């Protein structure tokens, strides 16, 4: 039977099981088992692909970057970050919205998770924005969209998965994400400026004050040092992303326990417990996705896919349009780790064959999937924003809509201007 038919059948089964409400990891696993049975492969492949997939030292970075975000939240460092960001840009129209985006970008440089960024910054920024005259949808949209910077600005969980699956340098991919993340942050800030002006949001009357800014920076110093510890360690060549995650976590734990004293031993164990559950959520999906990915490889689908796509067009711009449309649809339907594990091995070799830089392509893939974090139905950031505000999913989705359009514009720029994602890799890792 045609392998493409099998792949489509498994995909349909996966979608059906997911719609029924079976958790994504289990839906992937069950679809994989059905594939194994149909093709008469050994049942042991379930264990072999899962354990072989999960047991990769680079993936160990995932719990550490989740832990960083969790400890940061528990150690109450996010409040000072929002204050500092507010002092930086708060005096401009839409200043607090811009401040929330800056705070998201700083938090993103510590944690690799989108929902964690929304939870940490949104909890502080949304009520404050509403209090200062912003409409609730504007505040919610800003925090949810700002949260997508979490998995784009390094460290980033999707980039780790992409790097492992395609055997690319994770450190270089992180730098690709830095350019893309900064561009998106800038676009969101400009948008907030004009939106606040149009909505007539009152401007803070105090104006800029270097003294207050320095004071706020001093108060936020412990949080601001964390990205330096994590990213400095990686790019100074001192440690791998996994080790940087562990060192950053130890730094924040010491700060929380002994400096700010906002973290107790019980709180610390809670952080580890929460990290265990959150990273298990991600790792289980990754582990179970290795079976369908292995089945697709055994059916030679990457080669068939390459022949099919290259048969349609050998123009890399056409290929990128195809990839963007495909990933945007899949990103809003499928969980990001699973989508990367299954699709990246198929599309990455084609991109390289067409002369697209692997870092550039990796950045496009991750930005695409991360936009899915604010695109219903599988919109993790919106779920978090919903739980913070008590708004309905429809209201939160409408609030995020202008930001989705903005991110799509950003994606077009990132896709067709490779310099955006290649600037930092060329500067720091030539």
């Amino acid at each position, binding site marked *: 039977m045609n392998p493409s038919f099998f792949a489509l059948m498994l995909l349909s089964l996966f979608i059906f099981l997911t719609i*029924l409400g079976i958790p994504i990891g289990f839906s992937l696993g069950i679809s994989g088992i059905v594939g194994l049975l149909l093709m008469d492969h050994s049942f042991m492949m379930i264990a072999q692909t899962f354990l072989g997939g999960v047991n990769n030292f680079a993936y160990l970075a995932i*719990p550490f970057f989740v832990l960083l975000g969790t400890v940061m939240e528990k150690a109450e460092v996010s409040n000072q970050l929002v204050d500092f960001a507010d002092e930086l840009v708060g005096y401009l129209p839409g200043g607090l919205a811009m401040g929330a985006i800056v705070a998201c970008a700083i938090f993103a440089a510590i944690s690799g998770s989108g929902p964690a960024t929304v939870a940490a910054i949104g909890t502080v920024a949304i009520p404050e924005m509403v209090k200062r005259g912003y409409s609730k949808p504007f505040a919610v949209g800003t925090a949810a969209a700002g949260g997508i910077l979490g998995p784009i600005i390094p460290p980033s969980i999707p980039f780790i998965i992409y790097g492992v699956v395609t055997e690319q340098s994770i450190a270089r991919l992180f730098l690709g994400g830095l350019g893309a993340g900064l561009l998106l942050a800038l676009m969101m800030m400009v948008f907030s400026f004009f939106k606040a002006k149009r909505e007539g949001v009152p401007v803070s009357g105090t104006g800029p004050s270097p003294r207050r800014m320095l004071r706020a920076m001093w108060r936020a110093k412990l949080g601001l040092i964390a990205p330096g510890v994590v990213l400095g360690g990686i790019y100074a060549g001192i440690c791998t992303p996994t080790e940087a995650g562990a060192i950053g976590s130890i730094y924040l734990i010491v700060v929380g326990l002994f400096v700010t004293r906002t973290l107790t031993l019980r709180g610390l164990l809670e952080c580890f417990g929460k990290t265990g559950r959150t990273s298990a959520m991600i790792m289980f999906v990754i582990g179970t996705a290795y079976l369908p990915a292995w089945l697709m490889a055994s059916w030679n689908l990457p080669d068939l896919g390459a022949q099919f796509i290259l048969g349609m067009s050998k123009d890399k711009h056409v290929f990128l349009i195809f990839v963007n449309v495909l990933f945007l649809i899949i990103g809003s339907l499928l969980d990001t780790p699973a989508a990367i594990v299954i699709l990246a091995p198929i599309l990455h070799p084609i991109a390289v064959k067409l002369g697209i830089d692997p870092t550039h392509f990796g950045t496009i893939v991750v930005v695409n999937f991360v936009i899915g974090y604010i695109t219903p139905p599988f919109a993790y950031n919106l779920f978090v924003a919903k739980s913070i505000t008590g708004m309905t999913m429809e209201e939160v989705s409408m609030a995020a809509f202008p930001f989705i359009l903005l991110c799509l514009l950003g994606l077009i720029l990132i896709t067709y201007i490779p310099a955006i994602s290649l600037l930092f890799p060329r500067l720091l890792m030539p």
Partner: protein
Amino acid sequence: MIDAIEKVLGRIVAAVVAIQGLVLTLLIGTEVFFRYIVGRALSWPEEVAGIFFTWFTLLGVVLLTRSGEHIEFSFLSQQLSVRGARVLSIFIQVMIGLYALSISFSGYTYATMFRFENTPAAGISSLWMNLSLPISGLLIVFYSQVSILKILKTPAKDGGSQ
């Protein structure tokens, strides 16, 4: 009785996961400390961390199954009647249990087949890592059954089955 067992088991698993998280952080911290401060690279922390990480992940999945925190799409169950949603919830738990049973069986076969293999640097038996799958699988089966019992015990508001 079942309630008490699942609570105690849940607390034990949660404590093990939290401690494993702490150990993982310390292991990797130790690796970097020895390489840069002591000037001697250790090879075993990475291997031991790999074993802990697999357990950390799979026991985390057990906790997620217990608390129902897995990533899932609940749109369909929200559209159904209370009775329909209960039937669907039971079906979902049956599927979770069946899958967990499969990984348990497959994991056990895999673990026994490679039981004589050791890690290259520390020489630790691969059984320590490979047994994580059958054991966690059985725990997931247990919690999926507990969930079914809980669903059956909860009275259906629209006059559905008890």
